[in-house]
């Protein structure tokens, strides 16, 4: 394996992962609307146009088309762009991609990746552009769901997703597009789906951070460290199948759990994590589980108002300090 690394942004990692996989395997193709606009120009310059289908505005059928192609010899990547548009595609994702293997008794495989971007912070785009709906798809069996938070995780996970023989939804955080990191150049550098990552080890409290919350989670953990509170930051990276053992092992060590995500509160990924930890890790808990989320309120177009709805570093500091104060350090 090549050990050389390159400094790469999250966005470049997406292009690089797709390019490497398209070079490696002729059956990998990219389907989506406005491919030239959305960071795929390098791919358009490199590969045959039949492998890069820029489609009409037909989310339902372009997604179903990808599923049908996956069932008949190709390995499509379907770029659905803005997460709020995924609802139009949700029937072929849930009723076809997720179910065809099972309904056919294993005769069919659906090796497909659905790429979905999440906007948040101060976009000014309003409610129909700012959803983070991964939790809705978590409830549909038969799908794998990944939420990479760094350039390196993005590259390794997207490549694994493309090589996976099951349908994978990858939720990308646009806020992270310019975040740089050293990433392995090896074209076989893969990160396994279903494995969490301890982004910062600690011993007093487990902070599970989903997607772009990683930056505020790590900066909060640094500040708390100075105050003598040792926070272990875990990035699940995969929401389905979730690495429950990693989270439960951490709870066994720390006894306290806070989960932070940018999605709306009800039935979020944080709710699922809270549920299985209280079910399987209750005997280790010293304090109630806390979730820091966006409230169940639509995102207004006013950017100044919008950014106040999302979790902040201040929220994490406040919740953790409060938890430690109420329940004691030990």
């Amino acid at each position, binding site marked *: 394996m090549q050990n050389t690394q390159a400094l790469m942004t999250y966005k470049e990692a997406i292009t690089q992962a797709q390019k490497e996989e398209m070079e490696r395997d002729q059956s990998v193709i990219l389907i989506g609307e406005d491919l030239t606009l959305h960071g795929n120009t390098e791919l358009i310059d490199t590969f045959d146009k039949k492998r890069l289908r820029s489609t*009409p505005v*037909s989310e*339902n059928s*372009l997604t179903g088309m990808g599923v*049908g192609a996956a069932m*008949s010899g190709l390995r499509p990547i379907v770029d659905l762009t803005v997460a709020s548009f995924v609802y139009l595609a949700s029937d072929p994702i849930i009723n076809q991609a997720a179910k065809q293997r099972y309904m*056919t*008794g294993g*005769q*069919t495989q659906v090796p497909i990746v659905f790429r979905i971007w999440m906007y948040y912070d101060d976009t000014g785009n309003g409610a129909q552009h700012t959803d983070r709906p991964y939790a809705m798809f978590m409830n549909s069996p038969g799908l794998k769901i990944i939420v990479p938070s760094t350039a390196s995780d993005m590259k390794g996970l997207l490549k694994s997703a493309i090589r996976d023989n099951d349908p994978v939804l990858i939720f990308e955080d646009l806020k992270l597009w310019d975040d740089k990191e050293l990433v392995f150049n090896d074209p076989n550098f893969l990160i396994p789906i279903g494995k969490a990552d301890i982004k910062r080890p600690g011993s007093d409290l487990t902070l599970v951070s989903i997607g772009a919350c990683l930056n505020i989670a790590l900066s909060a953990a640094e500040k708390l460290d100075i105050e003598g509170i040792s926070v272990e930051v875990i990035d699940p990276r995969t929401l389905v199948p979730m690495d429950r053992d990693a989270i439960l092992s951490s709870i066994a060590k720390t006894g306290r759990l806070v989960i932070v995500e940018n999605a709306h509160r009800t039935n979020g990924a944080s709710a699922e994590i809270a549920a299985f930890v209280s079910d399987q890790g209750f005997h280790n808990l010293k304090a109630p589980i806390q979730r820091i989320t966006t409230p169940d309120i639509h995102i207004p177009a006013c950017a100044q108002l919008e950014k106040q709805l999302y979790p902040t570093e201040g929220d994490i500091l406040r919740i953790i300090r409060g938890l430690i104060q109420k329940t004691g350090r030990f």
Partner: protein
Amino acid sequence: MKLTIEKRLEMYRKMVTIRYFEEAVKHEEIMGHLCIGQEATHVGACMPLKHTDLITAYHRSHGHSIAKGAPLRGLMAELMGKTTGCCKGRGGTLHLIDKASGILATSAIVGGGIPLALGAGLSMDNRRTDHVSVCFFGDGASNQGTFHESINMAALWKLPVIFFCDNNRYSMSTSLKNAAGQTDVAMHARGYNIPGIIVDGQDVEAVYKVTYNAVQRARKGHGPTLIEAKTYRFEEHSMGMEVPMPYRSQDEIQRYKSFCDPIALYKTFLLSHFTDEKSLSKIEREEKKAINDAVNFSKKSDYPPLKSVSEHMHSDPLVELSFSREML
């Protein structure tokens, strides 16, 4: 293209197989969506296809599966929910898939199979094969967005997809004249700049000829065709479905049964020009026997055990296990 006597007898055989199969389903009172009356449409359309050509269908797919060559034992066992079924009891009447015969998928979501067929066409085009993708759908599906979106894309890229509408005039209880301003589904082809052809769905040779031409067109890279076969289903939408308010008259059903039975019509045609009663009776006996064998086989087969219920959820058995650990 020329129909030899062998091909003709094969078509008759297949139509009769479908009819006996459906009658057995009725007799055994298994949940099913029967296609009695539509045999000529399904057989005529599948006859020009090779096993490498892929079809997608919909909730009423017993006829398509048999016409495409799926083994009868696997189909009947699947309807009974047995582990020996073609989908190991997981698909049932709505998903009678036999991959080896080239049945790609069926969709219980009306119109859901149409983009899948489009995708198969895309795959064939990308891999530069001369295979074709035939998309079967009903008149009801012609009002779904997926119908229009998919034809548009197939036409745009000249994909080898044949859009084949089994227009049996009713979508459950809704007649097409109460659902669409345009009751000739093939006319939609004009909007997408592709050929649209209407054919008598009760005439198996007419269906064969029209489909054959569309298949050749697609194989040569000339793109999609929309075919509409006017047909009729003699039974209710699904087995045991209650109809509190009749949506079609008994008179109408009886007229179709008496004058438009595709098997009776073809039998008359074959007897007048090509063969004798003895040959056709032999075919009928053989297929009756094959159906009885399929029924007996299915009855003797076991149901899948509970511990196997999570199998085929994922490509990786370990992942399957991690999902089912809370259940087991």
